[in-house]
């Protein structure tokens, strides 16, 4: 059924259709509307046979989900930003134990300085935790990915994070097609655990493992994700058959067939990128884009296949690996190992800075003219940075950086 609703509400309704049995939640902006929505759906009896557990922290939220999942219940939670950091130990435990929990990340920056707005620092910090990570481009895809996530998680025996851009998607009203319960039921069978804690047939889960077997357990975690690499596109294809739309899978190429330049990105910014591509195509520029849906497992071979015919690659990424550059571009370089195409990193949209068509087009044009560095920062305010660096040079106690910069910006607005 077509609806015009908020992204968070759309996700809450979809999670309901997936028949979760335990939902553990601790609210944090910008994830709050999702768990509030779910709370309402459980309270009103729209989601049945489900226990909604309010917990005292994010660490508790995921810990309860781990217990519930090990007890054989389909379990769900959601978080963002510092909340994800606070549950970090449990994040590794969930994947290490192979429990098929699904968790939404309402992507948000990490402090200090504190910032409630969108970038990918939070989910990126957990990229190697052993969870599958899927990134949504639109609210429709965010919904569809959750349905697929439970399938993938339960088939492979691995937890899945569905990452959706905080505010940009979570708080946006747009048209979505909410599936019918029968459709979801036909696609997503009841949870049949691979391992279960059952008092009548006791086992222990999470034994201590020494050097004699730890590598093998870790290798099997990697092997699971390699299996997921095959299952993710198959499950996406089956989803398309049943629901009639392309959602999920490994990657979404856009006008890449004859493209000399390909722009790679994760999440909602791909929409804006596509609009820029269309305009540049009208000017005869051979440019295309590639939205990566499955970041973990990372589809190295599929990316190599699509990207290797291009002359250059631009990676737009909403994160910074401080002291190194960009995380996504480093991964893309791995996909293109042994090849000579330049991979340009463009760090953009940190802490919610708008990524505009105008700035993207300038960046793409400059890259095509080879007037860029290896690592670039979209719309960086160099004047403000110079002022702060001068201040630090002049005075050892020049004051806290964030506050200094805010004062400078305030002064400039007054002028």
């Amino acid at each position, binding site marked *: 059924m077509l609806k*015009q609703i908020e992204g968070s509400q759309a996700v809450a309704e979809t999670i309901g259709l997936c028949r979760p049995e335990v939902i553990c939640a601790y609210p944090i902006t910008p994830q709050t509307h999702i768990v509030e929505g779910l709370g309402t759906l459980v309270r009103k009896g729209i989601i049945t046979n489900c226990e909604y557990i309010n917990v005292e922290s994010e660490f508790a939220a995921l810990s309860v989900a781990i217990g519930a999942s090990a007890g054989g219940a389909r379990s769900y939670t959601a978080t963002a930003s510092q909340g994800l950091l606070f549950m970090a130990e449990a994040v590794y435990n969930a994947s290490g134990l192979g429990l098929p929990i699904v968790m939404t990340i309402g992507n948000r920056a990490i402090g200090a300085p504190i910032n409630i707005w969108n970038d990918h620092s939070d989910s990126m910090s957990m990229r190697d935790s052993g969870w599958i990570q899927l990134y949504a481009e639109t609210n429709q895809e965010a919904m569809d990915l959750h349905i697929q996530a439970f399938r993938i998680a339960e088939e492979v025996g691995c937890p899945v994070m569905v990452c959706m851009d905080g505010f940009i998607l979570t708080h946006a009203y*747009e048209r979505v097609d909410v599936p019918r319960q029968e459709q979801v039921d036909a696609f997503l069978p009841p949870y049949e655990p691979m391992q279960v804690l059952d008092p009548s047939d006791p086992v222990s889960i999470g034994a201590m493992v020494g050097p004699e077997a730890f590598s093998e357990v870790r290798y099997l975690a990697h092997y699971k994700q390699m299996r997921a690499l095959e299952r993710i596109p198959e499950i996406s294809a089956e989803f398309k058959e049943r629901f009639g739309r392309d959602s999920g899978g490994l990657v979404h190429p856009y006008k890449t067939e004859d493209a000399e330049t390909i722009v790679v990105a994760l999440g909602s910014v791909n929409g804006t990128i596509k609009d820029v591509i269309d305009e540049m195509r009208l000017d005869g520029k051979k440019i295309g884009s590639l939205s990566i849906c499955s970041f973990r497992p990372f589809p190295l071979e599929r990316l190599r296949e699509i990207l290797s015919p291009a002359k250059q690659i631009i990676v737009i990424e909403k994160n910074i690996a401080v002291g190194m550059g960009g995380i996504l571009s480093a991964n893309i370089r791995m996909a293109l190992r042994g090849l000579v195409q330049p991979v340009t990193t463009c760090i953009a949209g940190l802490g919610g800075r708008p990524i505009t068509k105008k700035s993207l087009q300038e960046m793409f044009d400059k890259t095509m003219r080879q007037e860029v560095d290896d690592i670039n920062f979209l719309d960086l305010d160099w004047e403000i940075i110079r002022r702060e660096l001068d201040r630090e040079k002049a005075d050892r106690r020049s004051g806290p950086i964030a506050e200094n910069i805010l004062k400078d910006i305030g002064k400039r607005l007054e002028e």
Partner: protein
Amino acid sequence: MFQIRFHGRGGQGVVTAAEMLSVAAFLEGKYAQAFPSFGSERMGAPVISYCRIDNKEIRLREPIGEPDAVIIQDPTLLNSVDVFSGINENCYLLFNSKQSYKELGIEDFISDFKSQRVGRVPATELALEHVGRPVPNAALLGGLAAITGIIQVDSVVRAVREKFSGKVAEANVVVVNAAFEMTKKLLNSGG
């Protein structure tokens, strides 16, 4: 694509206004996208929200820098926020005010715009009278329907009934229709 930017203050239903407008457009079979400016939410603080309406899927995610219409829910913002940022002489402007443009100090400014594209409506007073709360958003959507025609007033009414229920919904429906008629009348009288 038609792009609308709402300026108001926390507590005035600025975000809800954009959301209701997107629902109204959706009810007409159009694509619409509404989103807030993502500020920290505090009563009285300046708030911006956006709505895009199109006949095809909207992929663009940037804030609206060059709007086709601007709605100013609180004219005291004129002194503190650049509500006219990025507009041109074809832009539609709608003010929540019972004061004249002269009293608002914008008589000269609006003379550069097409008179049929500038409107004002005493939205707060209408809301107080019918809803009992100073929330001007519904009235301004009625006014927007009158000056732009981008949305039918009936669709706004249906959106109001989706967002609210019972007495609150019906009071807001009265407000929407009254604001629509008042704005039409104002335009017919030459602004």
